[in-house]
């Protein structure tokens, strides 16, 4: 078989990795079993929790070792490993090794598993009280480990042939996509092998900090879910609220920070032209946050009515389930065309679905009574077998969907049956904090529902055969602004209400004060931007200022007495500022205006007119807001094409921006915007299109070609084509008198003048008559030039059979014609408010966590 001795190859990590992975997998499932068993068998609790604890320690150590192993392979660039080869190369600076680590799916699964292990260590300190939570974490870890297994299951008799997971320590020469490459047979392949490298678009610090924060946020949704599972197992439906609360708010803070970093990355380094474009991948992390936030607030309500006891676990379960659903959406390839940055299919679709359905069914199973449990489980297993054996046919997909929806109803029904009938009734007073918190949570849920349906359209298409396209930014905004408004008002109100009743006279006084401040700020900001629309912009602005004013006044009152209790006020004020920031920075943004020299194209449909992008020749000036922009020059610096834009304000140069294009022959070129930050506004500049060849030529000292690329057309008389800035009409073919059409073809002479009218967009009209001369058996063609436009037309061939002519057109370039850029520049006013708002939401949530941990001791 394989007897080649490969030079320098170290393959022991493949075996070590395999061993650690199997150890981690077995210990995860065993740990989960032990912890759950300890709850179900209280008489043996001591020994089962001990076992679970041991299993957890073995598991987390294995996970840490796997992570360390992959890091060390990446750090030493051991390209004999496919993952290292694919995500790094020799030229990659060591500081981007983190980015390379989690660029691929395997690495990001590992990152997720790493955070679960870390969080678990904190829970392990009270492993007896947290046994159910730890069991749940271990169970999730078990599923995550299977994603990394890379085991082929092949039973031809049963028609079974699939791979479980994708192994991160596969050898390069054994990877299916490279196995047949000739170099894998060379004994010294490693001496010359360099990695494919990290996509240059991902070589920035955002890629280093955004994924770990986001995955820590994802891992934190598992903990409240674990508390719910534990509560269901122990049949104790209310005492877990207090313990789960700080974890839930920690998740709100960290996941919020992760999402915020994603938005900041999109704004600073990607060409989205904004901080949020409702991309499916963005929504996929926002939806769990909305649900987790709803659930976390339910935990705050002290009076545990039946409704709250039902809604809190439902929201927290959904928060975790939607993380799994997001994982499925972004990693199964189902999003396809809908998102630019989803991962592609690694063939894990079935496994990801199983992951999702298992954890959806688990809590439902736990709340059902014995008889229902049996039917529910059998139905699930039958569907599973049917789904796999029918290769996910449309019937099985439909049944799975039905099962999922039914689970939701059954779960709520089952839970309600379990709840003690003595649970207090909900305070039916609309001037209570309970009521408005509930309202807020429900608004968050409906918002999450809208995002989920919109983002799931590719999935719905797969299930029903429809062909719906995911909505654009306007479609999302049109619905979501309502939720923003409702939430702002609710968030402003709720701070001044108490759990239970409050004296309405003092309440009205407080709220009146807040409303007055909010109105004043709204009027002031409205007066700065009088062109603002009342609906929805000004209304949302009022809502935002109301929440902000309410939060800040609340903080001012409480910060001295309870510095940490102000967390809620800070978060709510932050949300208000976020709304204000969105309305002003997005609604009142100013684009660079069109160069005066350019011609207004009348031939275009007005509806489509798009003036966002302008062309600038070197030295050209255009206006934007209070600035005048000059394209100062371009340069090539290694793999960066840089374009300097000078900004002038009051005749003086204020600053320069250098947006660039990162050149990567193997991964595609990526434009990177440049932004100048001021307190009151940001100036964003982005290159949309340039002639990169021109810059490369110039740097190499080669002069530009004299003519534009020739274009070829096959035309009939009367045809019109558009080429090089002109409309060209084939008028006819004139023949010169005195044509000799002889019987003897060698004696024939025929002089033709195909005639064209060239009407260019500068208003020049020229008649062009290229010559077409048949002399005996030879053909002479001579081009003719349009005087005004400079277009050169030559007729290459006349086909009498099809009565068409074959025409070549090219235009002489004018001086420095290729020294241009197409750019987009935007002034975003008061975008700092938006970031400040996001920041306060995160800080406020984290303050709430610290406060709760202080109150209740460790979770």
């Amino acid at each position, binding site marked *: 078989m394989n007897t080649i001795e490969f030079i320098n190859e170290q393959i022991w990590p493949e075996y070590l990795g395999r061993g650690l992975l199997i150890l981690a997998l077995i210990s995860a499932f065993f740990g989960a079993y032990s912890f759950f068993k300890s709850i179900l068998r209280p008489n043996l609790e001591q020994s089962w929790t001990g076992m679970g604890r041991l299993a957890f320690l073995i598991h987390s150590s294995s996970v840490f070792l796997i992570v360390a192993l992959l890091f060390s392979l990446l750090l030493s660039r051991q390209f004999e490993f496919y993952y290292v080869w694919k995500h790094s190369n020799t030229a990659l600076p060591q500081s981007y090794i983190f980015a390379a680590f989690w660029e*691929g*799916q395997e690495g990001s699964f590992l990152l997720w598993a790493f955070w679960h292990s870390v969080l678990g260590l904190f829970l392990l300190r009270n492993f007896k009280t947290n046994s159910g939570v730890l069991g749940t974490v271990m169970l999730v870890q078990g599923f995550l480990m299977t994603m990394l297994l890379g085991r082929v299951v092949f039973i031809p008799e049963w028609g079974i042939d699939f791979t479980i997971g994708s192994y991160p320590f596969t050898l390069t020469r054994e990877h299916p*996509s*490279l196995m047949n*490459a000739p*170099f894998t047979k060379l004994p010294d*392949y490693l001496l010359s*092998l360099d990695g*494919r490298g990290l*996509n240059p678009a991902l070589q920035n610090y955002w890629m280093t900090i955004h994924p770990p924060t986001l995955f820590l946020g994802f891992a934190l949704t598992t903990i409240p879910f674990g508390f719910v599972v534990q509560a269901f197992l122990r049949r104790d439906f209310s005492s877990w609220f207090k313990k789960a609360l700080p974890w839930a708010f920690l998740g709100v803070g960290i996941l919020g920070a992760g999402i915020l970093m994603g938005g900041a990355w999109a704004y600073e380094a990607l060409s989205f032209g904004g901080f949020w474009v409702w991309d499916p991948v963005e929504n996929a992390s926002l939806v769990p946050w909305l649900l987790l936030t709803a659930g976390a607030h339910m935990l705050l309500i002290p009076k545990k009515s039946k*409704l709250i006891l039902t809604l809190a676990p439902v929201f927290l379960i959904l928060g975790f389930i939607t993380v799994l659903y997001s994982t499925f959406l972004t990693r199964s390839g189902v999003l396809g*065309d809908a998102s*630019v*940055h989803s*991962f*592609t299919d*690694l063939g894990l679709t079935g496994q990801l679905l199983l992951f999702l359905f298992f954890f959806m069914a688990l809590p439902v199973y736990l709340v059902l009574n014995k008889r229902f449990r049996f039917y529910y489980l059998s139905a699930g297993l039958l569907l599973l077998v049917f789904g796999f054996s029918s290769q996910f046919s449309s019937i099985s997909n439909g049944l799975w969907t039905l099962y999922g929806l039914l689970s939701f109803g059954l779960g709520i029904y089952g839970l309600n049956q379990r709840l003690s009938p003595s649970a207090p009734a*909900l305070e*039916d007073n609309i001037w209570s904090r309970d*009521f408005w918190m*509930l309202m807020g949570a*429900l608004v968050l849920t*409906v918002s999450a*529902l*809208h995002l989920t*349906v919109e983002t799931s359209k590719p999935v*719905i298409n797969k299930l029903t055969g*429809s*062909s*719906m*396209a995911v*909505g*654009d930014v306007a*479609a999302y905004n049109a*619905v979501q602004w309502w939720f923003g408004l409702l939430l702002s008002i609710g968030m402003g109100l709720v701070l001044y209400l108490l759990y239970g009743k409050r004296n309405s006279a003092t309440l009205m006084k407080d709220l009146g004060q807040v409303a007055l401040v909010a109105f004043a700020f709204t009027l002031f900001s409205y007066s700065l931007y009088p062109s603002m629309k009342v609906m929805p912009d000004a209304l949302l602005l009022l809502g935002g200022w109301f929440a902000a004013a309410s939060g800040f006044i609340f903080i001012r009152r409480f910060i001295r007495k309870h510095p940490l209790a102000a967390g809620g006020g800070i978060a709510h004020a932050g949300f208000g500022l976020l709304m204000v920031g969105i309305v002003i920075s997005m609604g009142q943004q100013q684009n660079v205006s069109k160069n005066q020299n*350019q011609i207004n*194209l009348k031939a*275009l449909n007005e509806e*489509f*007119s*798009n*003036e*966002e*992008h302008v*062309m600038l020749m070197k030295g050209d000036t255009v206006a934007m807001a209070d600035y005048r922009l000059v394209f100062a020059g371009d340069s090539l610096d290694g793999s960066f094409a840089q374009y300097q834009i000078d900004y002038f304000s009051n005749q003086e140069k204020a600053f320069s921006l250098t947006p660039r294009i990162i050149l990567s022959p*193997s*991964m*595609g*070129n990526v*434009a990177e915007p440049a932004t100048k930050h001021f307190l009151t506004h940001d100036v964003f500049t982005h290159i*949309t*299109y*340039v002639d990169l060849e021109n810059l490369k030529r110039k740097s190499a000292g080669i002069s530009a070609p004299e003519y534009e690329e020739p274009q070829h057309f096959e035309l009939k008389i009367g045809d019109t084509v*558009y*080429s090089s*800035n002109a409309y060209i009409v084939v008028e006819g073919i004139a023949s010169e008198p005195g044509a000799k059409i002889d019987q003897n073809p060698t004696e024939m002479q025929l002089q033709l003048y195909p005639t064209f009218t060239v009407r260019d*967009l500068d208003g020049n009209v020229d008649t062009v008559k290229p010559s077409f001369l048949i002399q005996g058996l030879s053909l002479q063609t001579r081009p003719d030039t349009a005087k005004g436009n400079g277009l050169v037309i030559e007729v290459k061939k006349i086909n009498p059979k099809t009565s068409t002519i074959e025409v070549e057109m090219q235009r002489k370039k004018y001086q420095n*014609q290729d020294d*241009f850029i*197409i750019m987009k520049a935007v002034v975003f006013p008061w975008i700092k408010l938006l970031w400040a708002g996001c920041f306060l939401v995160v800080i406020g949530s984290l303050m709430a966590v610290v406060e709760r941990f202080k109150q209740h001791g460790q979770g």
Partner: protein
Amino acid sequence: MKKIHLVLLLVIAASVGVVLVALGNSDSYASFAKAIENPTRTYHVAGKLDLNAPMVYDPHTEANLFHFTMIDNDGKRCKVALHKPRPQDFERSEQIVVIGQMENETFQARDILTKCPSKYNDAPTQTVDL
């Protein structure tokens, strides 16, 4: 519990409304043939770039207009007028989706999505240069 019931009813109504809005106001993926049938409707058409047909981009005249020809997934060829600058590395794009409507035998595209073979993760790599 009366008020709460009213609220829950409202929430259910809002949920249904939101789902209906999301599903009802949806643009669809379609072929050029379908776009020709309904010239006033906006469609998303997926397909490939026709590399043999001329691509005309003359930013000196109009930076926000780019003409090219596309072959949709049914194999039908159609001229496209994109009302945006020409995407960088356009000729390398493997799959494109244009969003817009048909007008005078030309598809007037408001927006475009392009997928380059290896712009993002995990494009299958067949050969390696050594």
